């Protein structure tokens, strides 16, 4: 089954990329933009059928490799099929 891991810089860690995106959007005329944060979405195709087991495995992968706990946080999603 497919599992999605979203990796974001932790709150409080400067995100120059997000800031640059925000500035570019403002330049394009989009008003009212608050903070912009840029992250990564990693899709994993796992040989699992049980969502909870899949979630647990992806969490372990994120903890060990996909995210760097010094600067990043992550969340795991199981996209619902429909």
């Amino acid at each position, binding site marked *: 089954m497919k599992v999605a891991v979203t990796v974001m*810089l932790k709150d409080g*860690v*400067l995100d*120059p*990329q997000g800031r*640059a995106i925000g500035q570019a959007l403002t330049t394009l005329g989009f008003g009212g933009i608050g903070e912009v944060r840029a992250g990564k979405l990693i899709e994993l195709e796992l040989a699992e059928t049980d969502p909870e087991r899949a979630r647990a495995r992806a969490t372990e992968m994120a903890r*060990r*490799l*996909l995210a*760097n706990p*010094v*600067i990043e946080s992550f969340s795991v999603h199981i996209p619902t099929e429909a």
Partner: protein
Amino acid sequence: MRAGIVVFPGINRERDMAIAIESCFGQAPRLVWHHETDLAGLDLLVLPGGFSYGDYLRCGAMAAHSPVMGAVAAHARRGGYVLGVCNGFQILTEAGLLPGALLRNAGLRFLSMDCFLRVERADTVFTSRWAAGEVFRAPMAHGDGNYTADADTLDRLEGEGRVAFRYVDADGKTSAAANLNGSARAIAGIYSDNARVLGLMPHPEDLVDPLLGGVDGRPLFDSLAAALVA
């Protein structure tokens, strides 16, 4: 005394490092493949610059999990010497051998230029041939050299004398302009708590030959040679 240079897939400054080590140590280093786990006989392990695993995911993240890194960590635990430069520094932080992390440069661009570094202390095996406060020039070439750590960690590093080098201007002063990549507290390099593991972003190994623009980087290697030849 024997130095080993760890070669991960995508590393590209291993030859620069080998040239510098051979010219300063008088002995060619051993190139260690990332699958190797037996590092017996090596006194100094060097993690060179480059783009291990293409810098994909995060700089250094995948190399930090290579088989060789267990042996590198064991070497460090035994009090062995480890030098990580550029991608090597990133790998050391990803592997937890040095605190903090290296983010994208504040200006979001790859920076290839000479910078000035101030030697924060001269009583380590890496810096004995410099004087504390001395300024030297080194090429930098990285997209992710913006050192960061939480405030407590930064305070601790400073309090324990673990800041190795800072980005400064030619006169040795820190400033926003001299801190090219936006590093926290202008930190360019840090030590482990026993000062035997050093990570830094710029490349002293590319400035050890007068023909290539100077020998500002030599004291790093001469210091190591003096300490390790004993």
